[in-house]
């Protein structure tokens, strides 16, 4: 009998959730560093940030915000569905969540693509020639923060994918639902960070 099997026997839903909350703290601090940098440079370059923010497409940003909010709802619903023993509904809701995450990324891809076409990307000669230092900083932060957020979307989708597979296989079920709840917690975190990124980059002028 291997040790690994023994450790699988130890199941502590409360412990797993504490673990996920602690991990969420670390993620908040990771982005916290970026938010600090953003506020410092916003304070130092108010006019330039104002100018640069007008380049961003508020419509696409708003659509993406709605997409993420809906996806947060669907994953929360999937947890309730699992608790009620509705396996089929759980799976469908998780699939919808994944789909919404994917749509978010596609939107993001096109949004970035347009910026690149206009010569706005870190290290571009066009930016150096035509933009002020404050605007360069704004776009540097824009790409870093939304890029890092997109990586978290991908990580969240991978986690949801694993959960989905385990729900279908039956290893995540109403009595052992910690993985699904943790996936939900993580997805809400990713959503929450976007809720801060959206006004900081798109709305404040």
């Amino acid at each position: 009998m291997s040790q690994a099997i023994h450790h699988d026997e130890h199941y502590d839903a409360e412990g797993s959730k504490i673990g996920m909350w602690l991990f969420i703290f670390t993620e908040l601090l990771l982005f916290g560093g970026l938010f600090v940098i953003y506020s410092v440079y916003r304070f130092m370059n108010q006019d330039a940030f104002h100018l640069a923010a007008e380049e961003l497409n508020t419509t696409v940003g708003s659509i993406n915000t709605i997409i993420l909010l809906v996806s947060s709802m669907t994953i929360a619903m999937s947890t309730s569905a699992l608790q009620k023993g509705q396996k089929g509904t759980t799976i469908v809701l998780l699939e919808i969540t994944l789909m919404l995450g994917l749509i978010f990324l596609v939107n993001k891809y096109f949004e970035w693509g347009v910026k690149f076409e206009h010569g706005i990307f870190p290290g571009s000669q066009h930016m150096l020639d035509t933009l002020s230092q404050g605007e360069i900083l704004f776009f540097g932060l824009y790409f870093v923060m939304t890029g890092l957020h997109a990586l978290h979307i991908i990580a969240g989708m991978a986690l949801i994918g694993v959960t989905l597979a385990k729900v279908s296989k039956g290893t995540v079920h109403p009595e052992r639902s910690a993985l699904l709840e943790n996936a939900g917690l993580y997805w809400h975190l990713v959503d929450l960070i976007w809720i801060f990124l959206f006004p900081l980059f798109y709305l404040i002028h």
Partner: protein
Amino acid sequence: MQASSQIPHDVSYLDYKGKYKGLLAWILSTDHKRIALLYMFSIMTMFFVGVCLGLAMKLELIAPGKTIMGAQDYNAVFTVHGVIMIFMIVIPGLPAVFGNFLLPLMIGAKDVAFPKLNLFSWYLYIAGAILVISSVLFGDGSPDTGWTFYAPYSFRTGTNMLPAIFGAFVLGFSSILTGLNFIVTIHRLRAPGMTWTKMPLFPWTLYGTAWIQLLATPVVGITLVLVSLERIFGIGVFDPALGGDPILYQHLFWIYSHPAVYIMILPAMGAISEVIPTFSQKHVFGYKAIVASTLAIAFVGYFVWGHHMFTSGMSGTAQYTFSILTFLVAIPSAIKVFNWISTMYKGSIALETPFFWAMSFIFVFMIGGLSGLVLGALATDVYVHDTAFVVAHFHFIVFGGVGFSFFAAIHYWFPKMFGRMYDKTWANVGWIVFFIGFLALYTPMFYLGMQGMPRRYYDYLEQFHSANILSTLGSWVMTFGLAIIVINLFRSAKSGAIAPENPWNGKTLEWTVPSPPPVENFDDIPVYGEKDGPYEY
């Protein structure tokens, strides 16, 4: 718990034959005790590399001018020495080795909360180590920025910085996961009846450390990511040419890296707090004061980072504030020292090797700590900033504090870990040689710093020559002592006398299980009664 009954209770974790054989039985094991030893051997390997680099630096400084290397090589050597020693040895050192091995044993658990995550952290550690080493072996020259990767040099220099920075990031991630694991373990897996105020002090310090690992490391993580992106894409955040501010890098870096000092020293203090009551055979003096000072250090430690930057350009108000806060940290540290000394008072002291290490720990820790106040005071710091004085200070604290505590811990828990006793005579000889070498190596640097010798130069003026010779001789003596200690421990692990269950008459729970412990630690989870406690002699 059906499967657990099939693991025999009389087989030690060292002899246990699981599904895998040979090396795989170790690198695929989720047993916290095996993971602890994996960490120990990896850390020892990296320590060997770090020591060799340190010796090379001291040899270079034996005489003014170029002795064995030029300026560029010297820059690379002190950078890689720093990165290895900080990120791979003193930060994971006590938590990953003794924390992993002893935390479950001391709180009466069968393992940590997330055993697979624990093994994963070790793999991250190895990945980070390989990345850092690869920066030396491949690319256009070894990293040469110092271990702090200060902007803007870290993204302007032509040397191979990216693997080193990314390696430090991965090592940080490993550290975060270990901390997370320990917090959940301590919250969820303490033995029934072991309330917070009955938990031994070493787990308490691991708890404080784990919170720092969790809350401070992400900040340096994002900072290292940004400096890498600055190097690859030129995002401008730290680049003055694009409007960024390099001082901001220093702030973000030290917001982590100063608390990291407490990641290093807190578990070291915890191990000393175990050794001293055991060898005094007396209840630890001021248990609650030690716990409170542990948490106070962890808390105040977050707010002192600016004292690394007194000469970098900060407002006067910021300087005063950081200076006062720095002085505050000295108070809980001093409380601990008073508690240790008071524990010994009227105790029945056994002069064993771990106790010698603990005594010398207090000695070097005091020197290191008090010299820290010299650096925390604004007027004197401006005078000795970036001199050999700083190097002496942090080697007394980081190497003297953590290193001496590590050796105290390894001798103290050696019988439990390997089931054999170390050779006492050679252990004591190793200690005294090491101690003398240590003092000869680092004490002259205080003097040199006061005289104005800057750090991080391969060359110096003739007037600094004699003290540097003493320092270099000290490095040889210390390494000789180190060799005695390590060889003695290796020989004893193979052929020492068989250790009893409780050779020191310790009262914490790890001494209630056989040496070495069985795979499952405890046949039955121990229960703490009303009157039980970790130090009831």
